[in-house]
């Protein structure tokens, strides 16, 4: 299988097999220092991003700070 189905910020997406969270962020043009990553409801700390490969069916949330009261 050369592609995985994931859910990224609530939207279904297909990504190449064996891609890591770090590569996913890089592909999206996101600086890991400005994003918090949650994988299947578990926070993945920055140092672990490169060592975390995606699996079929993973649900990923990428969040950051926005304006609020």
């Amino acid at each position, binding site marked *: 299988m050369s592609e995985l189905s994931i859910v990224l910020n609530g939207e279904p997406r297909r990504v190449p097999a064996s891609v890591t969270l770090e590569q996913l962020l890089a592909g999206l043009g*996101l600086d890991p220092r400005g994003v918090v990553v949650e994988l299947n409801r578990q926070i993945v700390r920055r140092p672990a991003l490169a060592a975390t490969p995606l699996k079929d069916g993973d649900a990923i949330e990428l969040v950051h700070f926005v304006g609020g009261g």
Partner: protein
Amino acid sequence: MAELLTGPDTGLDTPLVIAGQSFRSRLFVGTGKYRSNEQMVAAIEASGAECVTVAVRRVDLDRRQETGILHHLDPAKYFLLANTAGCYSADEAIRYARLAREAGFNEFVKLEVIGDQETLLPDVEGLLLAARQLVREGFAVLAYTNDDLITALRLEQAGCAAVMPLASPIGSGLGLLNPYSIRTIKRRLGVPVIVDAGVGTASDACLVMEQGVDGILLNTALAEAQDPVSMARAMGLATEAGRLAFLAGRMPKRESAVPSTPVKGMVS
């Protein structure tokens, strides 16, 4: 940052300390709903606030426009207080608090667990559950609550670093609806009391501070003012005026007049 006229440096007031973090300004401001990021930055600057609230939301992956607030607001200059706005259960609020902490700025969270979409009033049962859990996890919890003394006392017992009763509902601008409740909460709690939500204009902020509370948090009153920068300055001044008037101690109210000019020495 706008200069404080009556802040701790002047000897007229002491700093506000929450969970070991010291603030010179007693005005906290939100960062939501401004017409532009430039306007938001200018208003926050004019308010004199050191603590600003932010929210946790998904990164917008489609638009390449920067929605992240830290591209506009310098995190070295302001203390970032993340909220859990929009959360309707304890579990959801805990999840958002953990995400916020992971951003790496501090352990503080402005905890909101909302119970009703129309009024945005808090779900106090969920709030207490979430507060206890987050305190166990080492958060400094500032809990947004209603103006009920018993809930405020329970939040303090739960280990909250500050309790944040509302003046009136979020975004309503109705001002301080129950000064008695706010005074009672302040009198009975040992932790700082920050009035959050409902302040609409400068006189509201002044009246809130005259009750003796430790600070105010507001957002919509600035963002929806015709001129947010001027309103921000007005709110900063009103917060200081109300605080100083409280510290000064007001004269008693009387039902009859007392002349302020000598009655002796009148010509006849």
